[in-house]
């Protein structure tokens, strides 16, 4: 697991699982289609990523599909890190 994936996985687990929630989140767990993250609370994740990695993810790229798994989120971050470079 690369560093970005680890950071995203850690943030998603802390930010979205309620206390006592027994679900485990892996790289491939569906977050939005699985009902763990909704579009309303997705905003904090987007802001976290932008701040942490000093990138800008435009709203057209921040789609529910792109945010549906930790792996796809990590890929999105990598994509925009390259754009920034």
């Amino acid at each position: 697991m690369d560093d970005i994936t680890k950071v995203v996985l850690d943030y998603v687990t802390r930010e979205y699982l309620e206390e006592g929630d027994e679900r485990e989140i892996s790289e491939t767990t569906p977050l939005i289609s699985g009902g763990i993250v909704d579009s309303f609370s997705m905003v904090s994740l987007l802001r976290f990523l932008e701040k942490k990695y000093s990138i800008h993810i435009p709203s057209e790229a921040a789609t529910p599909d792109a945010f549906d798994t930790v792996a796809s989120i990590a890929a999105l971050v990598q994509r925009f890190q390259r754009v920034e470079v």
Partner: protein
Amino acid sequence: MAFTETVRNDYQTEIEGIKAAGLFKGERYIHSPQGSEIEVEFPVGSEIKRCINICANNYLGLSSHPEVIAAAHAGLDRRGYGMSSVRFICGTQDIHRELETRLTEFLGTEDTLLFPSCMDANGGFFEACLSERDVMIADRLVHASIVDGMRLCKAMQDTYKHSDMRHLEEKLQEHQDKRYRMIITDGVFSMDGDMARLDQIVSLAEKYNAMVFLDDSHATGFIGRTGRGTHEQCGVFGKIDVITTTLGKALGGASGGCVSGRRELVEMCRQRARPFLFSNSVAPVIVAGALKVIDLITASTDRRDKLEWNTRYWRSLLKDAGFDIKEGDTPIVPVMLYDAKLAQDCARDLFHEGVYAVGFFFPVVPKGQARIRTQLSAAHEKHHLDTAIAAFKKVGRKYGILGLGKKELIAKCELEMELVR
């Protein structure tokens, strides 16, 4: 572009998709006034059936109260049917301002502004009062109208885990660089029937210099010793900066809502809230009825006391019967079934048994949290609840779910799914 066959087909496909996903919302026609017993035509064209209604927001049983109806009739005679205007052109009558003043007194705030609905109040408030220099920090289970209102506002959006005060505190710390911080919560959460920890929210707001926004639609009129709402119940009456609430539930159940709170915030809504500016005034007949409702609930707490008794009794009946319910002490009592199909099947069978209740499932509630939401009313008599529990028990026995907890219910549904496959 014309509404071509292709366009029609596209919409039809989408509607079929909603049906296939089990999310299609049909209507049942009611042939009587709202009450603890109603006459229902369902499916359309079938014989009218008399049922006990256990899913209305008619908490105080005032929707068809004779004194409210008489006051509404008198209002109709004295102030007419409609205003044919928004408030600021020629749509404000003396009774609109009178109702706003009465609501201000009742809610313990500085001023109040009526809106066509609480949906509109929530839709208009944030954009009118906050800017990009501010942050809105909302509980993740707030009502959909608040979510919509926040989306229309340029202020930064953030959320905290449902009723998680530690998480809220982290967010308040994180946003200290903003001009204003506004904590946003429902008083009573409509799907779970639990209450916001408003005393702790107010303490955090004081500690981190934030304002508090409270949607008390499922509380105004009956939560708290004199029914003023969640702020009365939690001992923070007079300390809430903004309360939005509705006339469409306990307060007569017709329509209309309001923003009530700090004078300047209310004034900003009068000047800038678009649903207020661009919608007609609340109809005089509704204002007159609502004034009578305020008279009734300030003169006596009998109705909220009866609702409290009914709530305790109904919760104990369900528990004794072996249903898994969400704990709490509000008149919203969710009977947890976890499985969407089971919730729908139980609701259908309850209707056959003469009890009108509705199943809720994803996306209205989180996945795997399907339920039948029951709601008590002061209009319910003990015999209504005794009859309703008999129907619940009969249906519960049919599906073998009595006495099962969350894990057992989920396991049972998964096993049955396997067998079907």
